[in-house]
C-alpha cells in the first residue's frame, strides 16, 4: 500500500503528517521525495547509507563530429548548439532522452554519467527511511524520485508513505503516479484553499482516491473545511493549531513517539486512511 502526502504549497504540514503516519504504522517505509529540501530525515535521524544518483548526458568527440547538426535540430529542449565547428552541450537543459546519441550518424556522441544528487537510506525503529537529495543548481529532481520509488516498489506488505514536494508540477506527478491513495494537507486560510484546489485538481486528473487533512485548525471559520464540504471531499482528520505540537515539531521530535495525545490522533488517521484504501480496493475490484 502506497500513500502520498501532498499540498499546494510548502509549510502546510506534509512532513509532519507523513513522518508521524510512518512512525504510527511502526513497520513502514518513508520516502522523502521533496528532493530540493528534504527534511523528514531530521525527525527520524537514521544511520545513513548513501548512494549517488546520476543521469546520462551526451558527450561529444569533436574529432568524429562532422557538423551535420542532426542532434541540434532533433533536441526539443535546445540543449545543443553548434558553434565554430564545435558542438556545445548544455548539461542543465538536457533531459537525458538519449535521442541525439541514437541519431548521430558519425557516432560522435557517447553517454556520460553526470551526478545530480544522492539517496540516503537508513532505519529509525521499524521505519525504513529513504531520502532523495538533489544537488543545488540542478534543474530536475525527477531522476532521483524515479530511483527512490523504483527501489521501494516490491515491499508490498508494508505501508509506504511518500512525502511529496510542494505544488502540483511534474515532480509531484512523478511522486504520486503509482500510489494507491493521496492525502492532501491544507491550512485553514483562503490562501490554503487556493493551494488545496491545485492539488485537488491534480489528484482528480490522476484519478486517485484522496482525502484531506486539515492542519493548524483554530476555533472559528475554516475556509479549507468549507471547501471540502462544498466539494464533498472526505475530511480524514483535523489537527489543532497547538503550541505543544509546534514546539515538539520544531525540535525535530516525532510527536507520536512523544505524546499519547498525538499518537492517538495519527493512529486514528492511519486507520482511516487504510480503511479508505481498502474500501477503494473492494469497490474497484
Amino acid at each position, binding site marked *: 500500500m502506497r500513500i502520498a502526502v501532498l499540498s499546494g504549497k510548502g509549510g502546510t504540514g506534509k512532513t509532519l503528517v507523513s513522518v508521524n503516519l510512518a512512525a504510527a504504522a511502526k513497520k513502514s517505509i518513508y520516502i522523502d521525495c521533496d528532493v530540493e529540501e528534504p527534511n523528514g530525515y531530521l525527525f527520524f535521524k537514521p544511520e545513513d547509507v548513501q548512494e549517488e544518483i546520476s543521469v546520462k548526458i551526451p558527450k561529444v568527440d569533436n574529432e568524429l563530429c562532422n557538423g551535420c547538426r542532426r542532434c*541540434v535540430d532533433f*533536441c*526539443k*529542449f*535546445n*540543449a*545543443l*548548439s*553548434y*558553434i*565554430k565547428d*564545435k558542438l*556545445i552541450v*548544455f548539461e542543465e*537543459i538536457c533531459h537525458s532522452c538519449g535521442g541525439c546519441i541514437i541519431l548521430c550518424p558519425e557516432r560522435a556522441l557517447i553517454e556520460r554519467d553526470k551526478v545530480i544528487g544522492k539517496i540516503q537510506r537508513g532505519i529509525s525503529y521499524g521505519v525504513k527511511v529513504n531520502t532523495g537529495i538533489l544537488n543545488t543548481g540542478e*534543474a530536475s529532481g525527477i531522476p532521483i524520485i524515479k530511483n527512490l520509488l523504483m527501489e521501494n516498489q516490491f515491499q508490498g506488505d508494508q505501508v509506504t508513505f511518500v512525502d511529496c514536494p510542494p505544488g502540483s508540477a511534474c515532480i509531484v506527478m512523478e511522486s504520486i503516479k503509482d500510489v494507491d491513495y493521496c492525502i492532501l494537507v491544507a491550512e485553514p486560510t483562503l490562501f490554503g484553499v487556493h493551494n488545496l484546489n491545485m492539488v485537488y485538481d491534480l489528484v482528480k486528473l490522476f484519478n486517485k482516491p484522496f482525502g484531506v487533512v486539515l492542519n493548524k485548525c483554530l476555533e472559528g471559520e475554516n475556509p479549507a473545511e468549507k471547501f471540502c464540504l462544498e466539494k464533498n471531499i472526505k475530511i480524514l482528520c483535523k489537527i489543532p493549531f497547538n503550541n505543544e505540537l509546534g514546539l515538539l515539531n520544531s525540535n525535530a521530535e516525532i510527536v507520536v513517539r512523544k505524546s499519547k495525545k498525538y499518537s492517538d490522533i495519527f493512529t486514528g488517521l492511519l486507520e482511516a486512511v487504510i480503511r479508505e484504501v481498502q474500501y477503494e480496493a473492494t469497490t474497484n475490484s
Partner: protein
Amino acid sequence: MIISIPVDEKSLESEVCISFGRAPYFLFYNLDTKESLFVDNSAANSQGGAGIKAAQIIADNKADVLLTPRCGQNAADVFKAADIKIYKSISASVQDNIHDFIDGKLSLLDEIHPGFHGHGGA
C-alpha cells in the same frame, strides 16, 4: 560587419523586441552593404532553451554583434563561444539603435540574467 537585433516587426522603424530568445524576428543589418535581412525566429515558440536556439540563428547568420535590451546566461554562453559581442540597446527604433551603435554610443551588455526557464517574465 553584421549587426543583429531582435525586432517586433520586419521594419527598421520597429522597436527593438524586449525579449531576445522569444523575439518574433531578427534583423541582420550589414554595415558595409547597408542591406537588411529579416529572419523568422524559429526559437520563439520553443518549450525551453529558446535562448540557445535563438543564439544559434544569430551565429548561423554570421552576425558580429548583437544589440539587445537583455540576454540570458545560456545564450550568452553561445555568443561567447561564437565571439559575438553583445551591446545593450536603447528604447528607441531599430534605426536609431544602429546609428547609436555606429557612433559608439552603445555600451556592452554587462548584466546577463540567469534565464526565466518556464517562469515567463515581463
